[in-house]
């Protein structure tokens, strides 16, 4: 039985990784226009982005999962074939992490001294050039470690997708636990999560020391 539990729960690993990687990528992309909007010259544009970030971050992920999974079918049952468990989970994670990533970008943008932008401008570099070659590389120095920490958190939070029936690690553990009336499957799930998070955290730390060694300040 015990060996079966290991292979049974392992079936969820690819979905856990897939959901985390795709959801995080979606968030990392969505964060870019969101942070750009936060610095827009037009106040209403800033408000839209600020409000989005407030609302998305202020509601628990599990509530977003239920809202996105169940909400659309309320209006049109045929939408159920569009908002499958998997897509709903991906959207919820993507939308929420977009708001978090926008905040990470904003923080790392603030960490770049204003003088850097001025120097680029005074040298006659275009705004795009200054952004791409002067500001962005310095932003990444702080944004990458923060994003890595967030992504590791997301890996664990992706377990919430089991509540709407995504076949990931926690879902399989829960199923096995239900049929065997044993807590062992959750122990197995815990080991799998550790097997994923510990190397990721190690990688993130390694990346951080490499980045800070390259550019001391």
């Amino acid at each position, binding site marked *: 039985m015990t060996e079966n539990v290991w292979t049974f729960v392992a079936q969820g690993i690819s979905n856990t990784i897939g959901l985390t990687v795709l959801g995080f990528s979606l968030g990392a992309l969505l964060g870019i226009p969101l942070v750009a909007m936060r610095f827009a*010259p037009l106040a209403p544009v800033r408000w839209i982005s600020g409000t989005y970030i407030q609302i998305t971050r202020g509601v628990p992920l599990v509530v977003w999962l239920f809202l996105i999974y169940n909400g659309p079918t309320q209006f049109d049952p045929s939408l159920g074939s569009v908002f499958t468990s998997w897509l709903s989970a991906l959207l919820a994670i993507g939308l929420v992490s977009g708001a978090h990533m926008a905040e990470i970008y904003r923080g790392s943008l603030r960490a770049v*001294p204003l*003088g*850097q932008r*001025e*120097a680029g*401008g*005074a*040298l*006659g*570099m*275009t*705004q795009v*050039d200054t952004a791409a*070659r*002067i500001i962005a*590389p*310095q932003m990444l*120095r702080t944004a990458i470690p923060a994003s890595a920490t967030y992504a590791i958190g997301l890996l664990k939070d992706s377990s919430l997708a089991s509540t709407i029936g995504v076949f990931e690690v926690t879902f399989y553990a829960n199923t096995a636990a239900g049929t065997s009336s044993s807590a062992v499957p959750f122990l197995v799930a815990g080991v799998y999560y550790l097997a994923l998070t510990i190397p990721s955290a190690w990688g993130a730390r390694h990346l951080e020391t490499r980045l800070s060694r*390259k*550019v*001391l*300040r």
Partner: protein
Amino acid sequence: MGHGISEAIVDPIQRPDSPAIRLHNVDKRFGEHTVLDQVSLSVDPGQVLALIGPSGAGKSTLLRCINLLERPTGGTITVDGVTIEAGHTVSANELAKLRSRVGMVFQSFNLFPHMTALKNIALPQQRVLGRSKKEAEDRAHALLKRVGLADKAQQYPTRCSGGQQQRIAIARALALDPKVMLFDEPTSALDPEVGLEVLRVMRELADEGMTMAVVTHEMQFARNVSDHLVVMSQGRILEEGDPRQIFANPQQQRTREFLRAVLERE
């Protein structure tokens, strides 16, 4: 800010004796607060202008108006035949045209920390002037040698002392072949001793005939190197003229007070 600047027009007829920098009735206001009040001045080609005065006088703001890091709310700015009038929107093209003529050195150096000294100097040449990498790096090496830092090419700025960083920053600005160099308190963030190496480079530059405008608290430099001295206070020019004459015999009470305060310290 943001609004309020004009079109740059390249003067087709450039008389050889026309000033390198000319400011006419330049105003800078933030709401009720006036930072610059109708300031006019001109700097001839090859001249070194020193701007001195108590802090908050508007010296740095005036300097930053010359390359439009600060947008004036009124007046006209002409640099090497390119004129910008306050009151219209300035296009990116016009801004580039003006800034290509003006090099700037900041109090806080503002070197790019993620690039070596060489790359700091080479990259802007490649991006702004379209020079090849080889061309840009050759020029960078030559300029590093000129400021006495030939051995620092592969060093990152944070590995260099403040004085070295500032000299790299001067080389970076010179690499773009500016007609005019602006210095915004270039030695204020440095130890007095380290500041000397920067001042030496600046003096050499002046001797070679570079047109310079320098905001400074270095009274020795203002007195001995500059050709024209401007004393500012409260957004206005208090007094201007020959530096030695002003130092020896200031005409205004406020100038006397300021000079006494700074010279007694030295």
